[in-house]
């Protein structure tokens, strides 16, 4: 009798859950600490230097990034390059999304294409996703030179790979049930795509496209530094000439553009979803 009461009042598992949790946290903490130590040793990272550099950089930015008269006179140039970069990001994302959508239709389980075809699609998408956009940019630079198309295709390949995988997942998740229903009514493959897959997955797809536009504006700045095009090039140019006030104006204009796009896409997403 006593034994049973003791067992009920002191369930042994309960204490061990907390001990187990503590042990997991301790192990995770030690793992992260070890990773930190090894990484810092490999890269010669100086922790104190790192912390000191933040206020230093903030002070430097506050002193040098204030746009002066010379910087304001460059505003038309900056805005022209900025709109070019923004348009490239939109164009890249839209083209990649259209291609990725039709490509992902061949790779989903929902549309029931041949297994080898679905597999090939996934492998091709994985290839484009895993080769970094930097590699594409360097590779394209050989034949396309310092052209706007270099950045365009570099971003296109990377975006295409990423969106194909995302769209395959989205379509499988969102459209499976309605496609099944349409199949049951005897709809053909194309009819299911246009009446089932597209309407049901479109909100999700648009949301991803908006996200990729934001990401691609930042990515195209980096590709711009590398391929000497767009707003990235302009920043690099002012930066290397030590014309920091103009560089500061470039940063400010990018910030305003990105935040505007983020706000617009958040609003759109709220209405769509």
């Amino acid at each position, binding site marked *: 009798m006593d034994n049973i009461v003791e067992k009920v009042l002191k369930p042994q598992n309960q204490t061990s859950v907390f001990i187990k949790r503590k042990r997991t946290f301790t192990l995770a903490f030690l793992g992260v600490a070890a990773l930190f130590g090894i990484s810092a040793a490999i890269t010669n990272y100086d922790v104190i230097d790192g912390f000191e550099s933040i206020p230093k*950089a903030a002070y430097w930015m506050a002193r040098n990034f204030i746009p002066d008269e010379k910087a304001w006179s460059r505003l038309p140039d900056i805005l022209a390059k900025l709109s070019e970069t923004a348009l490239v990001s939109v164009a890249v994302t839209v083209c990649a999304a259209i291609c990725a959508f039709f490509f992902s239709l061949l790779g989903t389980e929902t549309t029931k294409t041949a297994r080898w075809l679905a597999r090939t699609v996934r492998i091709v998408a994985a290839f484009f996703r895993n080769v970094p956009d930097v590699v594409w940019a360097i*590779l394209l*630079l050989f034949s396309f030179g310092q052209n706007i198309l270099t950045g365009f295709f570099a971003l296109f390949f990377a975006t295409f790979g990423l969106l194909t995988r995302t769209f395959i997942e989205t379509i499988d998740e969102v459209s499976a049930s309605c496609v099944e229903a349409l199949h049951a009514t005897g709809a053909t493959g194309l009819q299911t795509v246009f009446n089932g897959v597209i309407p049901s997955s479109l909100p999700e797809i648009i949301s991803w496209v908006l996200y990729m536009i934001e990401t691609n504006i930042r990515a195209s700045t*980096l590709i711009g530094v590398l391929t000497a095009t767009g707003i990235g090039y302009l920043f690099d140019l002012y930066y290397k000439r030590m014309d920091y006030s103009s560089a500061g104006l470039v940063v400010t204009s990018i910030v305003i553009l990105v935040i505007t796009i983020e706000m617009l896409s958040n609003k759109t997403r709220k209405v769509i979803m």
Partner: protein
Amino acid sequence: MSEFVITEQAPISLDISKYMHRTRDGKIKTAAKSKSGLAIKTTMFVLLTLTIYGFLTFDYKDIDMAKAVVGTWSNIKVVFGQPMLTYNTFPGALNALLVTFSLGALATIFGAIIAFFGALLCAKNIANPTVANVTKSFVAFIRAVPTILWVLIFTISAGLGSVAAVIGLTFHSAGYLVKAYAESIEEMDAGTIEALKASGASFWQTVFQAILPSSISRMTAWTFLRFEINFANALAVGAAAGVGGIGFDLFMAGNHYFDLRELGFITYVVVVAVILLEMLATRIKATVR
């Protein structure tokens, strides 16, 4: 005692024509007009217009498209078909890969620590609304500046090296993770926090006994996703800002030695690393759940 009075109910109206609309040629409309449908159409129209406008106004500098495409195709065949190291050694490439990996890891660790406290300041269910809004705007600003610009800015104050790279990468990681962590915290059950508050737990007790245990799995998933992004960013920054690692080797192979075979070999090293990282992340996410 009250009595129920059963009133005679009006028959449910079955006037279908009220709900059924026909198009001009007599077909029954199957889709209802909705606000979201209109928004989707508008968004698509605007994006397509911008795309076409972009293509019409880009400065192509009279590029010979056919020649460039043919040239690129033959370059792609060399890069992916005949990878070979000339200027770099295989251990050297692996070492550079390790440097890029470490830069990404350091930025992720710093970013995660900063983001955890940042998320506590701006998660809707625990934070003060004013503080939350200020934090959110500050974080939005940090996220809006591209990583490469942060790195270049920090290069001036900290010199060209790992400090500039890590701090530059950390800024964007922290901004990204604050948003992700805050969403993870907002998804948790409101009752748990309330119960702990009612029992007199302090703020930090609530954080470590309720918030952290219930959202740690989602946070870990986000952190590993960010680690993959940080690895790619460390690579890109290495190439564009010259802070070292395998990204810098890519840049040297392509833009300095003009050696396609070397570029191909390093690309393969990077691709294998990215795939291994993705597999590791998937496995860790599975064990955490």
